[in-house]
């Protein structure tokens, strides 16, 4: 089977190269059969890579330990679903995973894009194929998953225990899907530049794709936080680790892009900026892959150090040169069709929002690369950590939070004082009320106070939007409340889906603010001894160490410490934390021991118990206890964010066409229900098939 795999990889290189060369040469212009062959070759590419993937899976499932990759990441006693996920657990397999998913997207982009954008498609095929060829090339040249060993070990080494987690089965693919799908918008942008068809067509063609990759990135990042929280055991979910940052960077620029395209659609402004953003986002996704795989910056999440990094660095340079040269040569074609009328306008609010997103992205990039930069420039390696990122990003994030409330409600072109008063009176009051309430409750920390007050303001704006829209529908169509609300969202999916996403972000901000109040305590306890902790919500927890138990499970030897919890004097059940020594099928230890955190999640706070060790084989144990406020809300916020994204993307919520006259924000709701809604739906029918 490895022969088939290896053969398929080479076939993929040939097909992909052919496609890219013909595509970029432009010889298909005026030759429809050749153009069709170019676009169809993306399907052939997909076929080759599917064959290769099946070959690898076959090796994994049949425990063919003569294949180095299989021996390095699985063992006979590994549960079946982890054997499936071992496909992307290591460097080589994940490169194949990347290539096959990208070729799937490349092929879908060809079949799902509406016919009216068909003159972009051969170029799109060329770009996606070229990127696929790069990944397959890296594999065959330096990281071939089908490499065989000189001997056949009796059992494999097994999967790292920290990867033996359900989150780890879905988190990497989600993040990869996000990273990978960015290639499609990039390919369309490049195609628009190459073909000089620089109207808003390409933006409409990729709207759903950008949302898809944004959504996958969001899910991937949130799952990554969850994994770090339950597996790494340091007590939090975000540590500003280089790899975490690398996943955040394209998300930030993609989010900026999702906002700024609206300005281009409505006003014909920001064309260059948008193209720059999409090229930048693509480069950042490759940069993230580079960081994760090269080992240039040490990180808890990275793969082992390898020379694969050089390939990525080279690719980054080539792709960057390609993208920005194209942009530069087409610069004069990208004149803006309108100019800014007033700073108090939606355009300006969105521009500021974009600057903040890019500013945050820049500071994160800067901090991540600072050890390298400082060594190059000053000869001293200087690192910055979480304190740096928090100092810089908390104030910027708060500004952004404020704009989340202002942007969607302020009028296009120029906001009149009446517009401002009408839109912002109640929300500002809501924000002030939140602030007053918190001050009265005794909260004095400035950043959390600001975060929560701003959240109150933004929540006010969103509630007001829903309330006004629903009331307008109820009045106009005599609909009862639930139907009016449902139809309001259903008929203006892009707008109200967007609000839901904002609600999700609000919840994130509130939850992040909560972590400012976390409590932590370490203790060495004999059985029967206990510690007491007071939570920021005023509860008193007592943790009593009951004892240590040892037993064997499927592929590990477990040492478990059990803690009895009382909350405000009342019994609140048991929490168990484990030390696990993983073993292979011959009971030989594999890997270092790993810790399984005991977590009790609640709406107010999480109890987070880590068994750090046992004193010299006795039942005396070392524990760390954390009270983590509002963590549950991070996962909930993620769900709201994702459902908002899904509403926005649902077929029917397509792009509003540009000819719609710019309306005063406040009246748009009513218009959407009738005339505007009609236009929306017409445009949607065609664009809906983009994904």
């Amino acid at each position, binding site marked *: 089977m490895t022969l088939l795999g290896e053969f398929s990889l080479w076939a993929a290189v040939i097909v992909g190269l052919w496609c890219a060369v013909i595509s970029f040469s432009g010889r298909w212009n005026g030759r429809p059969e050749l153009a069709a062959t170019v676009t169809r070759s993306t399907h052939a590419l997909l076929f080759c890579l599917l064959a290769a993937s099946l070959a690898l899976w076959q090796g994994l499932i049949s425990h063919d330990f003569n294949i180095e990759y299989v021996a390095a990441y699985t063992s006979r006693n590994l549960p079946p679903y982890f054997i499936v996920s071992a496909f992307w657990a290591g460097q080589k397999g994940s490169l194949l995973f990347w290539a096959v998913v990208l070729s799937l997207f490349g092929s879908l982009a060809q079949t799902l894009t509406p016919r009216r954008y068909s003159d972009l498609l051969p170029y799109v095929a060329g770009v996606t194929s070229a990127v696929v060829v790069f990944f397959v090339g890296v594999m065959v040249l330096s990281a071939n998953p089908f490499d065989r*060993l000189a001997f056949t070990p009796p059992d494999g080494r097994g999967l790292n225990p920290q990867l033996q987690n359900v989150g780890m089965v879905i988190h990497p693919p989600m993040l990869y899907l996000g990273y990978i799908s960015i290639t499609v918008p990039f390919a369309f942008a490049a195609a628009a530049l190459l073909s000089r068809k620089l109207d808003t067509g390409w933006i409409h063609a990729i709207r759903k794709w950008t949302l898809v990759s944004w959504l996958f990135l969001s899910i991937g990042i949130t799952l990554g936080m969850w994994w770090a929280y339950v597996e790494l055991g340091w007590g939090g979910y975000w540590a500003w680790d280089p790899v975490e940052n690398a996943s955040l960077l394209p998300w930030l620029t993609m989010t900026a892009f999702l906002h700024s395209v609206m300005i281009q659609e409505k006003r014909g402004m920001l064309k260059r900026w948008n193209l720059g953003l999409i090229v930048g986002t693509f480069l950042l996704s490759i940069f993230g892959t580079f960081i994760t795989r090269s080992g240039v910056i040490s990180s808890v999440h990275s793969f082992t150090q390898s020379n694969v990094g050089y390939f990525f660095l080279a690719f980054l340079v080539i792709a960057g040169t390609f993208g920005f040269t194209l942009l530069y040569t087409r610069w004069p074609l990208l004149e803006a069709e309108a100019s800014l009328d007033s700073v108090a306008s939606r355009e300006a609010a969105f521009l500021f929002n974009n600057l903040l997103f890019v500013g945050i992205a820049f500071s994160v990039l*800067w901090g991540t690369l600072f050890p390298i930069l400082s060594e190059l420039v000053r000869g001293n390696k200087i690192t910055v950590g979480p304190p740096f990122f928090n100092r810089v990003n908390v104030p910027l994030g708060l500004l952004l939070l404020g704009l989340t409330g202002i942007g969607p409600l302020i009028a296009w072109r120029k906001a009149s004082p009446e517009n401002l008063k009408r839109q912002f009176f109640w929300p500002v009051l809501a924000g002030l009320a939140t602030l007053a309430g918190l001050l009265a409750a005794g909260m004095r920390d400035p950043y959390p106070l600001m975060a929560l007050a701003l959240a109150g303001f933004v929540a006010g704006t969103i509630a007001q939007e829903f309330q006004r829209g629903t009331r307008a529908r109820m009045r106009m169509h005599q609909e009862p409340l639930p139907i009016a609300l449902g139809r309001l969202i259903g008929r203006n999916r892009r707008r109200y889906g967007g609000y839901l996403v904002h609600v999700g972000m609000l919840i994130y901000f509130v939850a992040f603010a909560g972590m400012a109040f976390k409590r932590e305590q370490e203790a060495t306890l004999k059985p029967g001894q206990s510690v007491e902790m007071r939570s920021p919500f005023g509860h008193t927890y007592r943790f009593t160490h009951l004892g240590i138990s040892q037993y064997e499970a499927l592929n590990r030897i477990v040492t478990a410490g059990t803690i009895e919890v009382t909350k405000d004097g009342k019994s609140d059940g048991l929490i168990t934390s484990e030390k696990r020594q993983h073993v292979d099928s011959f009971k030989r230890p594999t890997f270092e021991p790993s810790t399984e955190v005991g977590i009790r999640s609640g709406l107010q706070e999480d109890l987070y118990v880590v068994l750090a060790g046992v004193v010299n084989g006795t039942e005396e144990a070392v524990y760390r206890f954390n009270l983590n406020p509002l963590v549950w809300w991070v996962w909930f916020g993620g769900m709201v964010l994702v459902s908002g994204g899904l509403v926005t993307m649902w077929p029917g919520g397509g792009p509003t066409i540009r000819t719609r006259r710019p309306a005063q924000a406040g009246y748009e709701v009513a218009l959407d229900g009738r005339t505007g809604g009609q236009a929306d739906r017409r445009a949607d029918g065609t664009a809906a098939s983009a994904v």
Partner: protein
Amino acid sequence: MKAGHKFLLGAALIVGSVAFLITEGVRETGVYFLTPSELAQKTAQDPSFVENVGFKVGAKVVPGSVRRDAANRRIDFQVSDGVKTYPVTYKGLVPDTFTDADDIEVVVEGRLGRDGVIRATDVLAKCGSRYEAKFGAKKA
């Protein structure tokens, strides 16, 4: 044009505060990342470095040097880059990957005491083969 100017002012304000926050952040929170040899060099050049300046040291744990006192959650060990060796003392919990087998690489954050012992405030183990088990005879 007036709106454009106002916008540029706002944009400059944002860009300026990003730049300010970054430079301030680096100045206030940046920490030297040194090897033991570089640390020795620094302290030789600038004696005030001892006790006053925080830094991170990236080095390997000297095999067999780890002394754990679990009951007091204290750990003593030595780090070395093959040229210079420093003793480290740390009170707190170390990650699972921290052992004295197999030349584990660690990053120790802290300050150097007058007695030549690094008082660590944080210890990170960065296992080079993080997600891959060691594999004896790889294909040549």
